[in-house]
């Protein structure tokens, strides 16, 4: 088995720099929920760590530019990266942001050899996403990850089959997936490289470090038995509306968003599913687009709850010019759960289609039982001439 690993380091920061060339060369802190989600390598050098509070990060790196994380944009960019890898092989597994694995066994013949394949991936990646990644190819996931990690941007490092242990041996043991305490213990024991760690007896490693240490020991020996699990594209329900002429941010847009919610919820009902995430993407007249997403309090297919979330998102995006297109995406779908009927609380009735209700009844009892009336001659002195009956089918 040959695994290709693609790593785009500091993916959110790379996206920000790609989209805003003025940010190149500047220190960046990407913040979500008051904590550092990602930062540029320069900020890391100054002591900033992912997950720390923004106040602490600003103290350590006062000259850094703080940016709010735009998850929707990052996700969109990452999906495009995955599409590039899917060209090489359909089985693509995702890791963290900017990290993906692909099984390229037997694929190199399509491209000549693995070097050409990696060159093709790098070329397509830059062409499609304007990003440069680091590529590693090896016989298992961990070795390919390490290879991609230590190589330079835009380059690929290929590890020939059977040489994984030799390749890993001189590399620092810090690259192994160990917790801080175990790393410290290894340091105290004088074990610096993966080669030193791999030479330890397996029983002793298990006795001292437990199952996690045993796994790391096997990885250091170039054995990674973890299979590549291809990711499935997340199921979503999506609806979009284009506006010609463009809409102002007012009640009309709110109504349009309501329509999108209604359409999506109808699809959810038909599938017997619920959603827990609402994403709204607005494309503006000037060619820009903005998106926001919100996690609902629980899985639901209730149009009212979804609409409340969507309207809130719309208001949060309301500082822009006229809207050309609105796209609503409902994510984190799951099957609807059965509910116990309650004696006390009865929900408001959904608006039903009377024709849908009458159809089976008319077939059973006859169409001449179901009517609707209309005002025929309101000024007639005779009451029975003021209105007329019509069969429901004629309505």
């Amino acid at each position, binding site marked *: 088995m040959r695994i290709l690993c693609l790593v785009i380091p500091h993916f959110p920061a790379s996206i920000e720099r790609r989209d805003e060339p003025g940010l190149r060369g500047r220190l960046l802190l990407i913040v979500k929920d008051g904590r550092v989600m990602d930062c540029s390598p320069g900020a890391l050098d100054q002591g900033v760590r992912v997950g720390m509070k923004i106040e602490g990060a600003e103290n350590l790196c006062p000259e850094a530019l703080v940016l709010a994380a735009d998850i929707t944009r990052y996700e969109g960019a990452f999906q495009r990266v995955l599409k590039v890898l899917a060209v090489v092989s359909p089985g693509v597994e995702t890791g963290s942001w900017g990290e993906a694995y692909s099984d390229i066994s037997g694929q190199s013949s399509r491209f000549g050899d693995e070097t050409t394949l990696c060159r093709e991936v790098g070329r397509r990646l830059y062409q499609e996403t304007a990003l440069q990644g680091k590529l590693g190819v090896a016989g298992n996931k961990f070795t390919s990850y390490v290879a991609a990690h230590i190589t330079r941007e835009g380059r690929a490092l290929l590890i020939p089959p059977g040489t994984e242990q030799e390749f890993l041996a001189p590399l620092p043991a810090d690259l192994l997936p160990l917790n801080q305490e175990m790393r410290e213990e290894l340091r105290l024991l004088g074990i610096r490289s993966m080669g030193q760690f791999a030479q330890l007896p397996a029983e002793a490693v298990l006795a001292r470090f437990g199952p996690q240490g045993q796994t790391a020991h096997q990885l250091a020996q170039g054995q990674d038995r973890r299979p590549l699990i291809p990711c499935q594209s997340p199921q979503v329900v999506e609806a979009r509306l284009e506006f010609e002429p463009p809409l102002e941010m007012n009640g009309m847009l709110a109504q349009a968003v309501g329509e999108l919610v209604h359409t999506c919820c109808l699809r959810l009902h038909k599938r017997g599913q619920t959603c827990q995430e609402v994403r709204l993407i607005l494309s503006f007249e000037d060619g820009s687009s903005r998106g926001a997403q919100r996690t609902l309090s629980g899985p639901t297919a209730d149009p009212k709850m979804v609409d409340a979330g969507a309207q809130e998102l719309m208001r949060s995006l309301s500082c822009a010019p006229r809207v050309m297109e609105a796209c609503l995406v409902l994510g984190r779908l799951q099957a609807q759960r059965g509910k*116990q*009927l*309650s*004696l*006390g*609380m*009865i*929900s*408001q*009735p*959904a*608006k*039903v289609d*009377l024709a849908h*209700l*009458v159809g*089976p*009844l008319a077939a*059973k*009892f006859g169409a*001449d*039982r*179901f*009517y*609707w*009336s*209309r*005002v025929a001659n*309101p000024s007639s002195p005779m*009451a029975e001439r*003021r*209105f*007329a*009956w019509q069969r*429901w089918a004629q*309505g």
Partner: protein
Amino acid sequence: MSRRKYHKLDSVVAGLQRRFGPRAIYRYQRPPDSTLPPHIPTGFPELDRTLGIGGLPRGRITELLGPVTSGKVTLAAKVVAQAQIAGQQAAWVDLSGTLDGDYLHCCDVDLKGLLVVRPHNGEEALAITISLAAGELGILVFDEVTSLQGQSLPPALLQGALARIHHRVAHSPCVAIFLTTTHFAPPGEVANYPPGFPLGHYAALRLSLKREKWIRQHGDVRGCQASVTTLKNRLAPPAAPARIEITFEGTVRGNG
């Protein structure tokens, strides 16, 4: 009850639910006082106040009793109009065959959104009502119970039909209104129920309407004033009768 006994009761209930299904046994949880049971307003504010919950209850059967020209149809029509304003669908089972579309129009009913069922006999009327009650209708009016009289329907069929309607309405958000005409027989009013039709038992709300006086204008009769007395209300304590005013031009207003 001690905590231990509570735990024991919980385990017994859980065992029964596992064996017979979750709907076999469950605790009735009283809704918080701040939330009223779901309802549709009648359009007469004074009557809504008298009813205690702000209107006619959803998921329950409501019976309107009264002699002719007491305002039963008008009251039902106003509730239909209120339901339609809220975007809900309505159906009217016109067993008596006396429905006046023009008058419903004057009562603000959207005729295009009202399904009128004109069954050929009482058995058919009950069967269609059972089917409609299972739908997601906002309101269903059965006009009228008195017409079932004299159709030689077996009492078991009537009772079974009413039980099924009651069950289906209880699991739907529908307000089911049954109109019953009463006639005067000393010492009071008597409802013309067919034998074996225990509507009074199944109805959660029974309202008796009685015309009190005619409303005259320049010597002509323009309408009438009726009093609505609550005979039975499972959702609120009893209250004093409410008065409603009906004018024949179709403008109907509450005296609240």
